[in-house]
């Protein structure tokens, strides 16, 4: 079975601060990591490969720094990885991926990120609009050919919406299953366990897209030997949108990120007045309004 795992490089949410005065993200000390939800998707694929055999390919779209997550996926257990990358240009508030190999963006529109790539505007985590990412991933999967399953993590850690899997499935013309906590194969075929609440076995008609949510199976850690070998040549294939036959028009963003909307600043030490019953009512109302309970 040939499985493609769509992985993404995200900022570690714990390392991102919000500048209230500038109303934007403070990304100066932010660290980029492999999206934690994608590790669960990778784990589901590796478990399936262990039971039925096959090939696991990690696929990512990003700037040059995204090579790290492609290598990390290989270190964890993927057979190989593909990185769709290119030059980045800021255009009408959105970062646009140049599709040609030799196109370089004007220096004034780029902000260097340790010489590795370029950071998005600090009001947004988004490098590319979701429709462009979908098309790049779909084109890469079509280019691979003979793919049985495409797996994604359910949500991106910082600004995830959960829209990738169904959108990718629509672009590929494949069925999609969301909220799968695991995959299992028996004599009747491939099944996704959809849950975790009121879990059900849902049959998967291949080829299909499956979005994996964190379940009881914990993602594995990479073996030190695999970490060292992940940097061997040939394990990561670099592609540009031009290699995938995509023109700039196909990557026109369908959305434009705008400003940040911040709630009221946290104020500690407030006292809820009134009798106990009244105070309890106020507290429960506030917790419900803040969607904490």
């Amino acid at each position, binding site marked *: 079975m040939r499985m493609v795992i769509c992985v993404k490089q995200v900022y570690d*949410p714990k390392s991102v601060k*919000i500048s209230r005065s500038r109303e934007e993200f403070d990304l100066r000390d932010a660290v980029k990591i492999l999206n934690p939800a994608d590790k669960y998707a990778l784990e589901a694929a590796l478990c399936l490969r262990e039971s039925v055999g096959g090939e696991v390919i990690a696929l990512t779209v990003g700037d040059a720094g995204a090579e790290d997550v492609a290598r990390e996926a290989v270190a964890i257990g993927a057979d190989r990885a593909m990185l769709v990358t290119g030059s980045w240009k800021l255009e009408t508030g959105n970062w646009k991926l140049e599709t040609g190999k030799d196109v370089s963006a004007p220096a004034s529109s780029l902000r260097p990120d340790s010489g590795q790539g370029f950071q998005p505007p600090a009001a947004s*985590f988004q490098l590319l609009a*979701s*429709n462009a990412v*979908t098309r790049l991933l779909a084109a890469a999967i079509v280019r691979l050919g003979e793919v049985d399953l495409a797996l994604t993590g359910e949500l991106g850690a*910082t*600004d*995830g*919406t*959960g*829209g*990738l899997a*169904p*959108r990718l499935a*629509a*672009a590929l013309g494949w069925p*999609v299953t*969301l*909220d799968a*906590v*695991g995959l299992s194969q028996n004599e009747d075929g491939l099944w996704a*366990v*959809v*849950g*975790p609440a*009121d*879990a*059900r*076995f*849902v*049959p998967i008609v291949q080829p299909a897209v499956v979005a994996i949510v*964190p379940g*009881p199976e914990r993602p594995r850690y990479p073996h030190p030997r695999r970490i060292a070998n992940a940097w061997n040549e040939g394990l990561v294939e670099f592609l540009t949108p031009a290699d995938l036959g995509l023109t700039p028009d196909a990557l026109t963003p*369908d*959305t*434009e*990120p*705008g400003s*940040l*909307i911040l*709630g009221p600043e946290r104020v*500690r*030490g*407030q*006292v*809820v007045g009134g009798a*106990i*019953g009244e*105070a*309890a*009512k106020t*507290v*429960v109302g*506030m*917790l419900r309004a*803040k*969607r*904490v*309970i």
Partner: protein
Amino acid sequence: MDLSYLEALMGGPVEETTAAAGGVWVVSPEGVLDDGALRLVGKARVVADALGAYVYLLLGGNPDSEAAQAAIRAGADHVLLASGVPALADLTNFFGERKPQVILFPRTRLGRTLGPGLAEKLGGGLCAYAADLAVAPIYQRVVAHQPVLDDAARQAVTIVASPAVVVMDTVALPAAFYEPWRTGKVEEVGLIWPAAVEYPHADVPSVPITLVNAAVVVAAGGGLKTAEGFALAERLAEALGGVVGGDLAALDAGWIGEEQLIGLTGRSVAPKLLLALGVDGDTSFFMATQAAGLIVAGQPDPKAPIVSVADQNVIADPTGFAGALLAELAR
């Protein structure tokens, strides 16, 4: 179509135009018209008023006409009833001819599946997770407010492609309208989609909730005084779907084990809600709870260290406060 509402809003006669014919659509594919779906209809009403459009509601799942009337009272101009649950191809065909301006889905599993797929098929713009909606005043574009960083902030996302497809989390939307004077049209569209399929049940081992991964932690302190007071904290944790921990005083009293101790010598916690009952708060406790999202404390002493650290304080006997909270949650 009843134009009285739009005419009242615009202060003069209004004619239905071709541009407005696309309208703002709410799709409830399962036919569920609960409070969340009615809130979504209300939000669609607000967006449609800003765009000068009508609100259409497509209800799948064999709904009755009473549900349609409830939707009209909540702001819908036109309710379309269909049978069964639509697949993506069905919805693509349905909307292909109608050229909607905006399509809203509730954030159910089916809504999350169909919304993004429909955006891709129709070539529209997508926000697959929005907590609120607005309309940009000049270009009349839909602006979705997308939660980021676990809802610590929201990102304004302007949808430039048409139709704008938005999957909405209805929890934070304002209460649904209830306007009995509204009139609207109810129509059976004659579409018969397949019924929802029931799949076999699966046993999934649940992930144990511990102090480290719990969304709600109730921290018990010496101020609870008795084992009965601590039992209230346990009941409160159960009612909130969280776990109970405690400070050194609770450990010394024998109410909690060492694995439940919150502090530098125990566990550090980062729940969305930390409810501290009878906890004075020492440095060790503060260091272990500094990543907590919201801290609510029940404490009789207004000069206790925790009062200045907690977001909300109830200066009262923690046992009585816990009982009042349980009674309020049971309502």
